[in-house]
């Protein structure tokens, strides 16, 4: 799936992508057309490139070169239309020729900056000296463009005559002069057109190199943006393995928000074997955020980014699929249960032939607990035999499935000195995970409702009826 479609489905990942500071529309296009990568070598290569760039961002010796390079990238135009015309042997316009010269010029300057930073092997911009020379017959060395006199011997005398006819000293018959001027301009424009046609034909052979330069420059933009984000957010390079092991995993958006507000954010460690893992924990214990953070980390890795954790080992999967939140689709006339169970069913079927990272948040919570429990038990049993990874959160106890279980430590009154209320309750939650060998989910719903200051009669009655 292309990144442009993926970000529509995953808000956490969308935030990561939108935070990339790209300088050029070409970089933006390259980013959006990235595919979900299942090729270990390609990913390692991409991460190698990121690791090559990262130290340069911190090196003050390269600060000015980086500023210059970013400035060149800002000047980069996405001229795919012009290049397509060139490939199809169409005659360009003067503005198109300017654009080609501009690209050749920028490529030349960026090649210099890139080689100064020793990144030639990472960003291998082709040489466009021939293109530039063709469009700079007077060796001006700048990216301005017009149909220079030297392109055709007829141009200089014509332009001289144009100036003479229009000069203030010329006091001949006005109508006659206007006619002569008009004729001369027409002949002048015809010659310019011949030159443009000739140049277009000559440039056709360079179409592929020009395209390569444009794409490589776009890649350079993307790589710099990714590296800058990795440095700013302190992301880590993932290792590829056959299991999930993340230390200090964070949800990037929540983490950035908490940091900017000076709030505590507790990173989480998690290790998963293939098959299913059931996650239990009190309400408000961050189970859903955990699923989103894990999904986001996997997506970041397989779209060639570093991930938001201290250390990360991740498997390569065929896809990341989440069933999180209320899937009720009023337009399709489905209830929340119907939409959810259909989505789970589809992905269960996919998991038989594909290696998925499947993230399911509290399945079957909207139906009666007896059947709900049975559905979760069967789902967990079926997923447990698969090659992929499934993370399922639940409040149901007594599922009796022999699989990995993790529990969020949850509410701990000793964590803060503040009075406990709806605003401060997050400060009292320990979000860390522990291996859980029991088959019972925590029963803390009433306690949390009480701490949140819910109606006392409701809580007392509920307690009495337990």
């Amino acid at each position, binding site marked *: 799936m292309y990144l442009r479609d993926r970000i529509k489905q995953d808000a956490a990942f969308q935030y990561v992508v939108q935070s990339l500071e790209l300088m050029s*529309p070409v970089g933006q296009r390259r980013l959006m057309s990235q595919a979900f990568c299942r090729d270990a070598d390609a990913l390692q290569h991409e991460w190698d490139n990121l690791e090559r760039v990262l130290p340069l961002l911190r090196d003050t010796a390269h600060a000015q070169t980086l500023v210059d390079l970013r400035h060149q990238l800002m000047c980069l*135009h*996405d001229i795919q239309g012009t290049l397509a015309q060139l490939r199809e042997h169409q005659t360009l*316009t*003067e*503005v198109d020729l*300017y*654009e080609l010269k*501009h690209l050749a010029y920028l490529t030349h300057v960026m090649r210099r900056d890139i080689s100064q930073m020793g990144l030639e092997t990472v960003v291998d911009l082709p040489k466009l000296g021939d293109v530039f020379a063709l469009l700079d017959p007077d060796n001006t060395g700048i990216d*301005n*463009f*017009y149909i220079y006199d030297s392109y055709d011997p007829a141009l200089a005398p014509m*332009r001289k005559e*144009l*100036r003479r006819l*229009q000069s203030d000293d010329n006091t001949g018959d006005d109508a006659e002069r206007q006619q002569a001027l008009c004729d001369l*301009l027409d002949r*002048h424009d015809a010659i310019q057109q011949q030159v443009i046609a000739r140049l277009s034909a000559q440039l056709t052979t360079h179409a592929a190199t020009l395209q390569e330069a444009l794409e490589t420059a776009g890649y350079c933009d993307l790589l710099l943006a990714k590296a800058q984000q990795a440095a700013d957010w302190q992301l880590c390079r993932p290792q590829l393995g056959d299991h999930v092991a993340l230390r200090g995993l964070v949800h990037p958006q929540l983490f950035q928000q908490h940091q900017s507000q000076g709030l505590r954010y507790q990173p989480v460690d998690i290790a998963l074997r293939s098959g299913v893992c059931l996650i239990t924990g009190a309400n408000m214990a961050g189970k859903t955020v955990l699923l989103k953070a894990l999904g986001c980390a996997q997506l970041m890795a397989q779209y060639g980014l570093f991930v938001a954790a201290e250390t990360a080992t991740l498997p390569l999967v065929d896809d990341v699929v989440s069933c999180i939140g209320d899937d009720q689709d009023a337009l399709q006339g489905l209830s929340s249960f119907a939409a959810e169970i259909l989505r789970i069913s589809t992905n269960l079927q996919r998991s038989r032939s594909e290696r998925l990272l499947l993230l399911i948040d509290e399945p079957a919570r909207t139906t009666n607990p007896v059947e709900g429990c049975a559905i979760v038990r069967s789902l967990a049993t079926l997923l447990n035999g698969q090659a992929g990874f499934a993370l399922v959160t639940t409040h149901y106890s007594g599922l009796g499935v022999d699989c990995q279980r993790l529990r969020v430590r949850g509410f701990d009154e000793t964590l803060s000195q503040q009075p406990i209320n709806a605003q401060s309750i997050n400060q009292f939650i320990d979000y860390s995970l522990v291996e859980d060998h029991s088959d019972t989910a925590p029963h803390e719903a009433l306690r949390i409702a009480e701490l949140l200051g819910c109606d006392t009669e409701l809580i007392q009655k509920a307690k009495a009826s337990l």
Partner: protein
Amino acid sequence: MPFVEKILPYRSLSIVGMEKNTGKTVCLNYLLRRLHERGVAVAVTSIGIDGEQVDSVYATAKPEITLYEGTHFITSEQHYRQRRLVSRIVDVDRQHTALGSLVTAEVLCRGKVILSGAATTEKLRRQIDELEARGIPLTLVDGALSRLSLASPTITDAMVLATGAAVSVNLQQLVSKTRFVCSLVRLPAVEPALRDKLSRLTSGVWCIDDDGVCHDTGFASALLVGSHVADLFRQGRRLFLSGVLSDRLLRQIATLPHVEEITLIARDFTKLFITPETYADYHRRGGQLAVLQQSQLTAVCFNPTSPQGFRLDSQRACATLSEALGLPVYDVKMI
């Protein structure tokens, strides 16, 4: 060589026509010629589309814009292709307008061109900055006073207003209409601190209290106020309209008690859709108008010929206008 000296100290100058056929283009051509003769490097651009060979409303022949060697100009890609001069492209802005990219070029061999330009004020401002960065001290803006345009010519430092028989063939009416527009152009600008605060407000109607704090009145537009006019002034006596001030609203505000304490603030004079009569009434009762952006009105150009062929006595008209406006007035055909 009238008024060329007066505009030299400015960084940007717009030429704004009160109506079509008021001689804006003749005036621009005059300035371009004189500045060229003095060896002043200038750039020229436009708001929206201008410089058609034939006036599209009255189908009268329209003078084209003539550019001289060394002049920079900005126009759309489409109009660049139609140019009748030799020029060198120095930049292309690919944020597309309806007519393609905007091309910045330098004239190598004089000739004629159709100008079109930025559609938004922000873009126009950036263009002027970029031209200055290229070492061009003065940018002329062919500023169509089209109220449909989002870009306002008032971001330029100075302004020349073009008036003429096209506005009215009755000299008295012409004077009174021109005087009214001049009085709007010359409305005072609010203090810089408040201007910076208000220019960030892109929508709604805001009441400013005595401490300079802006309160949202809850009306998305001044056109939606209806009969709740008094509600607008709950927190203060100054009101900022991010959009337009309609004649109807001004009439209603003029009837409020304490109108003499009220100041209405518009973005610039092009956002005032008011008639001279209503403004006079409001002003007589003591109400004030102010703007965020004011450009210095340096001169008025006058075209004695109306598109229908009427011709006013130029000398008398110029003298009457000049006296009424307190500004030099020049006949575009005689300068």
